[in-house]
């Protein structure tokens, strides 16, 4: 990345001072520059963080503007500089952008499109000095004046959602405001990212326990696997029934799902053979939120009980009645280890139930919300005896998920701040991070050392006590 020495040498050999003080001509290219009154020029050093590392750039003050050494800035950004008959041509290291400029000319070209400097580049003592912000952005970099920082490659802009980690430690996120489907894969270094997939069906997927594979269905009902490193997609099996809420087994060999046009079945598919097997077909429709125990011996799911509408044979308006009094979500548990076992109802109350989880000790946890909107959300657990108790928290929970050690919970305090906790099997809580900003999504890395969050549509990496904003 740091080729400023190379550039400095090349420039020195190409330029020759032929006139009096301040009059400079590039003999090999007929590039000319305006005279600069050296006595009026103030030179200095300005330190910026370039890709997180401090760099002192040579600067001059010209007409009240601070201009930066072209060679030094280009070198730090890894850009290649060519001196030609038309002036200087700079190419960024990815080959995505070309910048053409001349000393003493306010006009310059970025990818063939004319732009204007506020102050024309100046040749002084064999070096060209330019406006920093315009040079950095023209080369595809990003400059933040507030904290004097520069990134070689600008972070992508937009609204992001649907976060996932992969086994390589990369974060995969969907750019939701993109015209076309676009999944981006981010490294832990801001500005370093790739387009991971443009497959519309793959915008969200269930991640395997080893974070090497994602599973998703397409609009034909076909199940597919996506390699979370390469983005390669391959079909799994040939079944095209509707499959929702995919869940991997801990050994990564089986994927469980809610199956059927009306989500009336629970099924599974072998990752090795693609063979589909129906586990439950009890004619109860509207199943969702499938969860599998770590030992794969039981599943928990929600049944969305619908209202009951009645009318006469002629569908007259007068005859129509609808009873919503029993409508709502109820939790069920199915023992997969017992042949022909029947689902057991775990709940009867009409609260809103979200995020069910089966913990290692068999306890079922879920988030309960007041359908009247008056009481705060609570986190509840259902013990082996069927008793439902509240899990004490000092925040109002809004999201939870199960992990091998217990639960991860995101909640909002009275002051509006967000805290994410881990709660172990004994109910002991550890604060993972706290922020005054809204958090709309959370994902944790394979080794558990890092979090990725979405806040205000931006993707942030949280590690080692630091938050890095990967998008803008």
């Amino acid at each position, binding site marked *: 990345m740091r080729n400023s020495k190379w550039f400095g040498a090349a420039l020195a050999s190409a330029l020759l001072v032929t006139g009096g003080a301040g009059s400079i001509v590039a003999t090999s290219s007929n590039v000319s520059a305006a005279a600069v009154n050296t006595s009026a020029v103030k030179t200095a050093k300005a330190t910026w963080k370039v890709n997180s590392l401090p760099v002192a750039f040579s600067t001059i003050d010209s007409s009240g503007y601070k201009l930066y050494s072209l060679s030094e800035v280009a070198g730090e950004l890894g850009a290649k500089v060519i001196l030609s008959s038309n002036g200087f041509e700079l190419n960024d290291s990815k080959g995505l952008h070309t910048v053409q400029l001349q000393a003493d000319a306010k006009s310059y070209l970025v990818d063939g499109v004319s732009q204007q400097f506020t102050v024309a580049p100046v040749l002084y003592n064999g070096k060209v000095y330019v406006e920093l912000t315009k040079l950095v952005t023209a080369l595809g970099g990003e400059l933040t004046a507030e904290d004097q920082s520069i990134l070689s490659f600008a972070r992508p802009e937009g609204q992001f959602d649907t976060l996932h980690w992969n086994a390589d430690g990369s974060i995969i996120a969907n750019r939701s405001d993109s015209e076309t489907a676009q999944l981006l894969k981010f490294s832990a270094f801001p500005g370093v990212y790739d387009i991971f997939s443009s497959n519309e069906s793959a915008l969200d997927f269930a991640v395997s326990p080893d974070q090497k594979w994602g599973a998703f269905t397409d609009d034909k009902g076909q199940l597919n696997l996506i390699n979370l490193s390469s983005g390669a997609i391959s079909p799994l099996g040939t079944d095209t029934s509707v499959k929702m809420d995919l869940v991997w087994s801990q050994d990564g060999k089986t994927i469980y799902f809610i199956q059927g046009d009306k989500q009336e079945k629970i099924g599974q598919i072998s990752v090795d053979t693609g063979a589909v097997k129906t586990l439950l077909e009890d004619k109860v429709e509207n199943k969702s939120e499938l969860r599998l125990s770590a030992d794969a011996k039981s599943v928990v799911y929600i049944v969305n009980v619908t209202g009951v509408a009645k009318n006469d044979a002629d569908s007259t308006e007068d005859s129509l009645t609808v009873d919503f009094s029993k409508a709502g979500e109820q939790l069920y548990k199915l023992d997969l280890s017992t042949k022909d076992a029947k689902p057991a109802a775990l709940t009867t109350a009409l609260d*809103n139930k979200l995020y069910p989880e089966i913990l290692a000790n068999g306890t079922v946890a879920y988030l309960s919300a007041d*359908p009247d909107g008056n009481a705060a959300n609570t986190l509840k657990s259902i013990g082996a005896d069927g008793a439902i108790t509240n899990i004490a928290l000092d925040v109002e929970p809004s999201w939870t998920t199960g992990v091998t050690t217990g639960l991860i919970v995101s909640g909002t305090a009275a002051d509006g701040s967000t805290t994410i906790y881990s709660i172990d099997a004994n109910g002991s809580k550890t604060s993972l991070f706290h922020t005054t900003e809204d958090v709309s999504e959370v994902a944790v890395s394979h080794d558990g*050392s890092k979090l990725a969050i979405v806040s205000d549509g931006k993707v942030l990496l949280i590690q080692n006590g630091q938050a890095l904003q990967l998008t803008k």
Partner: protein
Amino acid sequence: MKVFKKLTVTALTAVIAVTASFAGIAAAADSLKGKITVNGSTALLPLTLQAAKEFQKLHPKVKIAASGKGSVTGPQAVKKGIADIGACDWDASIDVPGFKAFDGQVANKVAVIPFATIVNKNVGVDNLTTEQLAGIFSGKITNWKDVGGSDANIVVITRSFGSGTRVNYQAKALGGGDIVKKEKNYKETGSSGDMKTAVATTPNSIGYIDLVYVTGSDIKAVKFNGVAATTDNVINGSYKIWAYGYYMTKGQPTGATKEFIEYVQSKKFQNGSLKKLKFIPIAAMKG
């Protein structure tokens, strides 16, 4: 949402004591609350319930209760004030054959629903024209041999009056033709599921159904005017038996109802779960 002017995460614990992967949505300091009731089209019910589940993750305190009883009961329920949203397979704010407009209601497009003509697996015919279908459902054509099949009586299976699938099938497949009740070789069903079961278990039968239900080996979809019933053919304009699904509301929706409808219409839901449930996004039909 507050704007992230700079990195403001504080008090981070450096090591997270977990070893499993997870990702999910957290509803942050959400204040939206309210109850939303939805009644009507059984075809749209799975879509409504899926959207409700996802919407509640964003707004846990919003209650969404839904029921299905045929499209016409959607705008009827809205008119009677017993549902906030009437799910309907046609635009009930305008007159359609058999049903007057529901004045004052607003039709909010939420999905594209393809329909298919289906026959029992023993029927040898694999393509029917508009004229042939109109003849079959009006009772003028009664034997499969008259449309290229074997010598066997055609058993007509249709949806009951008030079904959105029936309204659309008459308009799009039968060219506005009637479905005439017959004394024999005729049956009415009350839901898409019942229709599928009836055709699957009745030799020489013909019916019609949402394309999503065309699964299994006991029924098969036949081409319409030579064009196969596929979502691709709907989108490319060559297959004509489809309709928009609507959420009817009393006037413009407001509050939680408005937010819910906007979620169903969002790109995230339209291109995500809606497609996985084998509906077609409304945006796919533009341009």
